[in-house]
């Protein structure tokens, strides 16, 4: 009987100690729309590193581009007892039921990369790129490149225009092109987001419009594809190329002079900032609900500067 009492007491103590540890050790879940894409892996890296720094555990889920799977992931995370969620949603429109559920569960949630549906307020924080302003800045720079090369005609390799961020990029770009006096003669939208497709589209763009003097790449592979085509056609330097996002591949092309400017999207930085915001919510510190990060421009002549290196550190992990 005495032995049984001691055992029960030990078990109870262990359970209490484990519960108290779980209460102290917070866990952040990162729900990615699809971990096939480098960008979302890099956001995850930012979440993981910041979680480590803040003493939090980290778990990740992938929604495989399915809103239903995204909802399942959120439920699983809550069931497992996570303290907070950082999410790259499948789409903005998929977020209302998710936010309703998490609000009921009192789990703070930060968005990274893609924000919630406009009009919603029941989220902790949204850390996104300022696509509209970036669209304007990139178009202005692209137009300058075209004019330097003796023409006002520019082409664009775009993300699919059913995406909200692509629409914002385009809106900003069109306004800036008009203001700077450049003509956007053709825009082709990607479907597969691959370099091969971008090569084909850049070729078609230049075949249909041989007088284009600059190409605006709205995503990283577009810049790589356009650079390949310009090089193959022997037009190095005669057609300017700008690109949004940034990766080791496009940085190498920037250094070679095949691309003239990259507007970096801080994937790692979005993960870091999102995690900081949910941590603030958990600890009662002030929270910034909407953070639209400016996408800084880095040109070939400045790519090795300390400022540029600081920017690049917030774009992709050092192992890349």
């Amino acid at each position, binding site marked *: 009987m005495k032995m049984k009492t001691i055992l029960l007491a030990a078990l109870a103590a262990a359970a209490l100690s484990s519960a108290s540890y779980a209460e102290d050790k917070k866990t952040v879940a990162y729900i990615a729309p699809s*971990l*096939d*894409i*480098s960008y979302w*892996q890099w956001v995850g890296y930012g979440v993981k590193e910041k979680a480590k720094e803040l003493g939090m555990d980290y778990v990740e889920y992938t929604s495989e581009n399915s809103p239903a799977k995204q909802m399942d992931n959120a439920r699983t995370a809550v069931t497992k007892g996570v303290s907070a969620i950082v999410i790259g949603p499948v789409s903005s429109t998929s977020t209302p039921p998710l936010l309703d559920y998490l609000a009921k569960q009192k789990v703070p949630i930060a968005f990274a990369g893609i924000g919630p549906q406009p009009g919603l307020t029941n989220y902790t924080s949204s850390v996104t790129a300022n696509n509209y302003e970036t669209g304007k800045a990139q178009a202005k720079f692209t137009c300058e490149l075209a004019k330097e090369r003796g023409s006002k005609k520019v082409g664009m390799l775009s993300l*699919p225009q059913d995406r909200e961020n692509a629409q914002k990029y385009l809106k900003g770009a069109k306004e800036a092109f008009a203001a700077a006096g450049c003509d956007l003669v*053709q825009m*082709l*939208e*990607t*479907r*597969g*987001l*691959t*370099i*091969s*497709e971008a*090569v*084909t*589209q850049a*070729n*078609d*763009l230049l*075949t*249909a419009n*041989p007088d284009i003097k600059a190409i605006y790449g709205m995503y990283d*592979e577009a810049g*790589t*594809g356009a650079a*390949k085509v310009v090089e193959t056609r022997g037009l190095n330097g005669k057609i300017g190329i700008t690109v949004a996002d940034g*990766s*080791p*591949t496009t940085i*190498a092309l920037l250094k070679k002079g095949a691309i003239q400017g990259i507007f970096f999207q801080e994937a790692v930085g979005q993960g870091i900032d999102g995690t900081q915001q949910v941590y603030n919510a958990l600890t009662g510190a002030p929270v910034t609900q909407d953070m639209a990060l400016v996408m800084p421009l880095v040109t070939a002549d400045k790519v090795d500067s300390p400022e540029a290196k600081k920017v690049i550190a917030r774009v992709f992990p050092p192992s*890349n």
Partner: protein
Amino acid sequence: MTDATNGTTTTNKLRTTRFRVPAVLFSYRTEVAIAAAIVVLLLAVGMFVPAALSMGNLQNIIQAAAPLIIMSLGVLLVVVTGGIDLSVGSVFSLTGMVTALAMASGADGLTASAAGLAVGLVFGSINGLLVTVVGLAPFVVTLITYAVAGSLAFIVTNGRSMPIGAPDFWLLNSGEIIPGIPNHLLFCIVLMVALEYVLRKVVVGRWFYAVGSSAIAARLLGIPVLRIKFAAYVASSLLASFAGLLTVSYILNAEATAGASLMLQAIAAVVIGGASLFGGTGSAIGAVLGALMITCIQNGVNLIGVNSFWQGSVTGAAILLAVLIDRFSNKNRI
């Protein structure tokens, strides 16, 4: 009324003996119709964008079509035997990643290419063994290998795209073994001619049609059905790997998602080219023309500036048209 040994008809044979030249054209009537459709398509696009008919654009089309052509030739062999290969897109991607990874580890271009082709050999053998020895349905088997190869393409480099370091690797795609003919075009021509010859003129080639028309009848005739099917899956994966190598050589970059859209396009190309998914019919020339047709549609849509989301609808319409032409031409013959 299909002749199980070569996929042509008895009527066709009679015509061949009486009027040799027209009969050859008649036996390739689907291919001639597709070729004519491609010419009409190019001319129509050329009315909007004259540069569509320039030599530069035609070279672009051939360059863009080359990987799809090579992959379609492999898929054709499987389809002719009455099977299906859904794994080719993933094998294509994995080949690129393995090749790039081998180069990053210090291998030269030749060794890295061999490593890439080994992917095709391994996955083709797995497909072939599971279909022939284990007796699983081709759809299920290749769906599994599609998933596994696709997953491995991400695992081997943790999802990162890989630049190609070897300075001369571009020669595989864009070099010229025969002066004036870029290698990608040469490979397409050689593979198409060789495959068409084997399928039409060599006994083993005819066995592929026989197996696709009726595996039971073929077995009774003493045709090694399982070996033919195994060979078809190995050839399909090897050609998908080779197409992956060519693409990596062209863009000097390997991506884990590179082949994602190609599998359906390759099957579509084969069907547009006159092959039946029930097996027993199809030609290498038809598959090549089918791949060219798909690429020309994509090129035309881009040149004219039509929203690229329409490409799928236009390709679907082209497949429907090809199938209807084939159906009615067969009906008329009977």
